[in-house]
C-alpha cells in the first residue's frame, strides 16, 4: 500500500519524509518536480503520476504537496483520501496545516504519521484516538513540559482503538455537558437574465460540537427528513436507523466533527432569497457603458439577509467605474478588473442600488458578453431548505446535557447572468 510520504513545499523543497517500508530515495520525487514544472500552476499537477518503478499520488493542500509513493495496485482514491486525512489531522492538531507549523512540530508530525499507518495500511486515523496517543501541543503544556520535563506522548496507552467505536475515546469527562449542532446550508444557483432560476441546489452540512461525559448515545431527529436528497454520514451514524426511521442515531466522537452532509437538489424546494435587477450595457461605439443594479429580498422567510456582497469580473476593456451606491460602498480593482460592492445588511424598505457609468478603453471593441454577478450573502437562523431539527435525545448517561441548534444559510456559488 502506501510506501512513503514526502511533504513538499511550494518551491519544491522536501521538508519531511516518512517511510513505512524500506526507504525509497527521495530522488523519486524528481518525476514529480518534472511534472510540476510542466504544469505551471500547482493546482494543475496531475494527481497521479507513473514512474518506471513507482506511482506517485499527490494532493495539494495549503500550499503544500503531500506526495505518496506506492508500488503496487491500490485504489487511488484510497490514497488520496488518506492524504487528505493526514492534512485534516495536522490541521486538527496545530490549527493550521502549513510548512511553518509542520517544521516547528516536526517530531510530533513524524510520530503522528507513524501511528496513522502501519506497513502502509491505515491503523489509527481517527483524530480522537491519535490525540490520546500523541497529545496536541498547547502553549500551557509546552510551558509545563519545559519546566517539568513532561512529554507530549500520552502516558496511558490509547483505549479507543480497542473498542468498536474507534472515533470516541474512553473516559471523557466534562463539568459542563453540552452538544451543539450547526446546520449550515449553502445555495448554489444560477439565475438568468430575466431572474428565473436556471439551476439551484442546496448543499447542507451539520457540524457538531459535542462535549459530553462518558458514552452518550444520541438520537437526532428532524421535522422533515424527507427533504434530504442525498446524504453522507460520519461513520458513527447508524445507517439502519436512518433507513428505517430517518433519525440520526450515533455515539458521537468527542469534540468537533461533521455529522452529516446532505443535498437538496429538487429545484422547487430551493428558495432564492434575493432577486437582482440589473442592467449592464456597453455602447457600441462610445467608450462607455452603464451599470444599474438593484437587489431586493425574495424568499427570506422573514429573516434579514446580511453580509451581502456583489462581485463582478469586468471585461478587460473596462478602465474605470464611476458609480454611486445608495448603500454600502464599492471598489474597483484596476489590475484584476474586479468590481466589488459591499452592501452589508439588506433593508427591505430601501433597496440598495448601484448605478453609474463605466468607462471603456477607447477603440476597444464592445465586450462580447456582459459579466455575470457573483453574490455572497448570509442569513442567520435560517436553513433555507426548511430543514428543522426536531429533538435531540440522549441515552446511556444520566446527566442532562445542554443542547443547542444553530442555523445558517449562505450563498455558495450564486451567480446572476446578465
Amino acid at each position, binding site marked *: 500500500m502506501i510506501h512513503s510520504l514526502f511533504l513538499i513545499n511550494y518551491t519544491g523543497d522536501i521538508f*519531511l*519524509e*516518512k*517511510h513505512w*517500508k*524500506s526507504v525509497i530515495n527521495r530522488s523519486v520525487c524528481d518525476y514529480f518536480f518534472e511534472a510540476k514544472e510542466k504544469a505551471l500552476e500547482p*493546482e494543475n499537477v496531475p*494527481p*497521479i503520476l*507513473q514512474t518506471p518503478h513507482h*506511482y506517485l499520488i*499527490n*494532493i*495539494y*493542500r495549503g500550499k503544500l504537496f503531500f506526495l505518496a509513493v506506492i508500488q*503496487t*495496485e*491500490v*485504489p*487511488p*482514491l484510497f490514497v*488520496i*483520501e*488518506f492524504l487528505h486525512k493526514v492534512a485534516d489531522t495536522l490541521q486538527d492538531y496545530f490549527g493550521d496545516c502549513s510548512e511553518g507549523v509542520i517544521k516547528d512540530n516536526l*517530531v510530533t508530525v*513524524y*510520530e503522528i504519521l*507513524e501511528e496513522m499507518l*502501519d*506497513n502502509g*495500511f*491505515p*491503523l489509527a*486515523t481517527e483524530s480522537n484516538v491519535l490525540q490520546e496517543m500523541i497529545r496536541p501541543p498547547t502553549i500551557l503544556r509546552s510551558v509545563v513540559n519545559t519546566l517539568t*520535563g513532561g*512529554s507530549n*506522548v500520552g502516558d496511558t*496507552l*490509547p483505549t479507543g482503538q*480497542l473498542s*468498536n467505536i474507534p472515533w470516541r475515546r474512553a473516559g471523557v469527562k466534562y463539568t459542563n455537558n453540552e452538544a451543539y449542532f450547526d446546520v449550515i446550508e449553502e445555495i*448554489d444557483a444560477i439565475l*438568468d437574465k430575466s431572474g428565473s432560476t*436556471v*439551476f439551484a*441546489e442546496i*448543499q447542507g452540512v451539520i457540524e457538531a460540537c459535542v462535549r459530553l461525559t462518558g458514552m452518550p448515545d444520541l438520537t437526532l431527529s428532524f421535522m422533515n427528513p424527507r427533504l434530504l*436528497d442525498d*446524504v*453522507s*454520514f460520519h461513520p458513527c451514524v447508524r*445507517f*439502519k436507523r*436512518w433507513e428505517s426511521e430517518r433519525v440520526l442515531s450515533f455515539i458521537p466522537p468527542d469534540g468537533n466533527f461533521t455529522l452529516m*452532509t446532505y*443535498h437538496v437538489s429538487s429545484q422547487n424546494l430551493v428558495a432564492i432569497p434575493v432577486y437582482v435587477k440589473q442592467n449592464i450595457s456597453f455602447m457600441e461605439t462610445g467608450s462607455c457603458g452603464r451599470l444599474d443594479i438593484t437587489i431586493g429580498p425574495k424568499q427570506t422567510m422573514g429573516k434579514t439577509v446580511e453580509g451581502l456582497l456583489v462581485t463582478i469580473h469586468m471585461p478587460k476593456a473596462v478602465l474605470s467605474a464611476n458609480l454611486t451606491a445608495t448603500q454600502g460602498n464599492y471598489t474597483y480593482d484596476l489590475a484584476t478588473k474586479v468590481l466589488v460592492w459591499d452592501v452589508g445588511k439588506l433593508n427591505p424598505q430601501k433597496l440598495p442600488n448601484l448605478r453609474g457609468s463605466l468607462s471603456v478603453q477607447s477603440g476597444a471593441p464592445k465586450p*462580447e*458578453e456582459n459579466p*455575470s454577478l457573483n453574490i455572497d450573502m448570509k442569513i442567520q437562523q435560517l436553513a433555507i431548505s426548511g430543514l428543522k431539527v426536531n429533538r435531540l435525545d440522549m441515552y446511556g448517561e444520566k446527566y442532562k446535557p445542554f443542547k443547542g441548534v444553530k442555523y445558517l444559510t449562505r450563498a455558495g*456559488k450564486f451567480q446572476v447572468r446578465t
Partner: protein
Amino acid sequence: MLDSNKDSLKLEAMKRIVAMIARGKNASDLFPAVVKNVACKNIEVKKLVYVYLVRYAEEQQDLALLSISTFQRGLKDPNQLIRASALRVLSSIRVTIIVPIMMLAIKEAASDMSPYVRKTAAHAIPKLYSLDPDQKDQLIEVIEKLLADKTTLVAGSVVMAFEEVCPERIDLIHKNYRKLCNLLIDVEEWGQVVIINMLTRYARTQFLNPNINVSSDKEKKAEAAALAKRKPYVMDPDHRLLLRNTKPLLQSRNAAVVMAVAQLYFHLAPKAEVGVIAKALVRLLRSHSEVQYVVLQNVATMTIKRRGMFEPYLKTFATQLLYSFYFFCSWRFSPILYKLFNPFEKLNINNKKMRGCFSCPRQTYIKSVDKDFVAATIQAIGRCATNIGEVRDTCLNGLVQLLSNRDELVVAESVVVIKKLLQMQPEKHSDIIKHMAKLTDNIQVPMARASILWLIGEYCEHVPKIAPDVLRKMAKSFTNEEDIVKLQILNLAAKLYLTNSKQTKLLTQYVLNLAKYDQNYDIRDRARFIRQLIVPTEKSGALSKYAKKLFLALKPAPVLESPFKDRDHFQLGSLSHLLNAKAGGYQELPDWPEAAPDPSVRNVEVFSLLERVTTLTSVPEWTKCSSREKRKEKKVEKPFYSDSEGESGPTESADSGKFRRTPTRSRFRLGGGGGGGGQKEGVEERIQEAGARKRKVRLHFCFCVLIPEIRCYALNICPSEQSSESDERKRARKSKQQKSESESETDGDEESDSESSQSESDDSESEVDVKNKKAVQSKAPSKPVIKETKKEKKEMSLLDLDDFEPAPSPQVTPVNSFLSSSLVTDLEGLSLSDSVLSPAAISPSGTQKCYELLHRISGEGLSVEYCFSRQPFGPDANMVAVQMHFANSAATDAKNLHMEDVKLQSGMRVTDFPEIELLPAGETTTAVMGIDFCDSTQAANFQLCTHSRKFFVSIQPPVGELMKPVFMTENEFKKEQGE
C-alpha cells in the same frame, strides 16, 4: 546526551535525531547509542527509539538484534497494548535472521485474547511475507485462522493481508463470505475499501452474471414487461446479500468507500439497480479536486462501457454532473470533461436547462486560455450532432453562431467541426456553406480556411455562384497563404474546373501557375498532378476521363468517436484503470462464470443451525440476520414444495438457490394453470398487441429517439435519417424500412453502411417489426370481436382461478379450451368461424413469434429457431406443437440432426422431431416436435445433435402458447360466446 541519566536530556537528543530522520538526513552513525535506550522507561523516549529502530534496523542488522529480546519480553506483557506495539515494531524491523521469531510471534498473536493484538498480527503478516516469501504456506494458515475472526477490528486488516499474500486462494473466503458481508458496515473505512474490492473479485468468480438475459436479446425488449417475469436467472441469495449490505456504504463520508461500492455495483449489480450509485458519484464531485479527477475518469468509463446503464438516470445524472462540474471542478480536468460529454450530450442538448449549462462553460472558456478545452467542447458538440440526427440542426445552428464569435480559435474549431457535420448532409445546408464562404475574408486560422475551401470545393454544385468568386479571392491571396490552405485552393480550383470550366478555366490556370513556382514541393507536386489530370492534353487521355470521378467522388462522412473506450478491461476505481496500464499486484477481475459454482461452499454452520432452527434460540450474533431470513424463507417454502411438481429431495444448499424461484413459479401456475388462464393471458397480450399497434409503433419510434446509443451501438452509426424524419412519415415507412433504406441513393455510403450493419445485428428485430406490421394489418378487422370476448373472458377467468390442477375438472376445461380456440379463430379475422374446422386451418400465419434456439455463431453455422405454430400436435392432444426452422449457413452439410438427452421437469413429455438426415449447406428445413409442458412454463432442456457436435438448448414456452385444440360448430361457438 543519549548516555545521560536524565530522561529529559535523552528525550531532547532523540527528538533531534528523529527530526534529522524526518528531514531525510542520515542518522545511522548513532545506531549503537540509540539502541541502548530501547529498554528506557520513559515512554516518549521509547517511542522515538522505536521510530529510529524501524528506520535503520535494515541497514544495521547485527546491532538491531540487540534490541530483539526487549520486544520478545514485550510480547508476553499482560497489557495488550504493549504486546501489540512490541509485535508491531518487531515485525517492522526488516532483518531476515529474525524471521522464525517473527513467525512464532505472529502465530501466537493470532490466537491472542485481544482483538487489537490479533489485528496487529494481521498487519504483521504482509511484512513478514515481503521479508521472506518462503513462509507463505505458514502465513496462509494464520490468515485462514484470522479470517474466521468475528470482530470488526480484525476483518479489514486480515483481508488486506489476504490480498497481499495469497489473493489467488479465493477458497479461503467461502466460509467467511457471509460473515464479511454482514460485518462490512461496522469495519473501519479503510478496511471497507479493501474488503469491498476483494468481494467484488470473489463475486465475479462465484455468481452468475445478473445481466445475462438483459443484454442478450433485443427483440424481447419490446415486450420486456411480459418476459421479465419468467427470466430463468435467479440471483443467488448471497449475491443479493452482498449488494444489500454494501448499499448503505454509498453514504459514507469517505470517497474511497463510495467509489469501491460504486465499482462493485457497476461490476456486479443487475442493470436495473446500478443507477443508485449515480447520486453518490455526483456527490463525490464536490470533494477535493484530486477526488474529482479520479471519479470523473471512472464515470467516463462507466458511461462509455455501458451506455444503457445510466439510461433512466442519465438526464438527472448528467445535469447534476455538469452543474457540479461547472461549479466545483477546476478547468484542469477539461480533457476528461470532453470525454464525458460524449455520452451525455446526446440526450441532453435539446434540454433547455442543459443548454444553459453548455453556454456557461462556453462563456468561461472563451475567457480562459485553455485551448484544449475550447477544442474539446466544440468537438463534443460535433460528436453529439453526429450521433443524434435529431439534434443535428440545433448543433449546427449553435456552431454557426459560434462562427461570429470574435475568438479566432473558437471560430476555427467550429469550422472544422461544421465541415465534418456538413459532410453528412450537404444538400440541406447550402446556406451555411454560403455563410462560411463569406467567412473566408475574416478567418485567419489556416486549418479553418482550409476546411472552408474544402467544403466549398466539395459542394460547389450547391453554391454555383459563390464558389468561383471564392476561388477568385483566394487566387489573389494565394502567395500569402499557408501551405495547407494552398493545397485546398488547388483542390478547389480543380473541382471547379471540372464542374464549371467556363467560368473558372483561367482562374485555375492562374492558380496552377502560381503553385508551380511555390517553395513547397508538396504544392508543386500537387499542381503538376492536377494539371496533368484535368487539363486535357494529347498525352493524358486515359486518366482525365476519370478526373471528375476522382475529385468529386462521394466521400464517406467521418465518424466522430470518443477516445475513451479502451480502458474497460480494468476494474473500475483501481490504479491500473486510471493509468490504463497494469500496475504491479493488480488482480484481474475475472469474467462471470458460465455456471454458478456450488453455492454450498459458503455454508458455514449456519445451515446446520438452520435445520435445528426451530429448537434453537441462540444464534451467534453475526449469523442472526441471515439465518433469520433463511428461516422465514424456509417456512414460506414448505407448502410450495408439497404441491409443486414433486420436485424431490434437493440438498439444502440447492434449496437456497431456489428459494426465490419457487414463488414466482407458483405465480405462473396460478396464471397459466389448466390451460384456460394461460391462454387468457396470452390472448390478452395479443389483443393488446393488436389494439395498441399504433401506440406500439409510436413507442417504437420513441424508443429509437430516446435511446439512440443503443441503436447507434448496433448500427455503428446513428439512425440519423430515421429520427430526424417526421413521425408520420416514419410510420408509413416503417414496414418498408429495409427496402427504402437500401434504395435511398441520396443517403450515400453512410446509409448503406448502416443498412448492412443493421441487417446483421438487428436482423431479428426488424423482422419482427415487419411481421408485427403484417400481423396487425391482418388482424385489424377482428378487433372489435376480440374486445368483446376479452371482457367475457375476464369473468370466466375468475371461475377457473381456483383451479390449477394439472388435470382440470371436466366442467371447466371444455369451456376454457373452447374459448381459447375461438379466440384463435377470432384472431384469424373470423374467416374460419363458420365451417372450416380442419386443424390445418387454425394456423395463425403471420402472428407467431420466432424464438431463437441456437444462434448461428454458437451453433457453428447451424441456426435453429422455433415458434409455437398453434396447431394441434397430431400424436398427442396434450402436447404443444413446436415448429423448428433449421438453417444451415455453414460451409459444410449438417447430418443426422436429432435430439438427445432430454431433461424435463416431472410430468412433462416430449415427442422428438423426426431425425433430419441431411441439411445441406445453405439450405433450410423445418420440423415439428411436440412438448407437453404440463401447463407450466418450465423449460424443456435437451441436446441438439448433429453428426459432429452437440448443442445444449432449451425451449421455454411463453404463457399463452400453451393451447389445446377443440372442435366445435359455429352454433356452439356462438352459444359459448353469448354466455
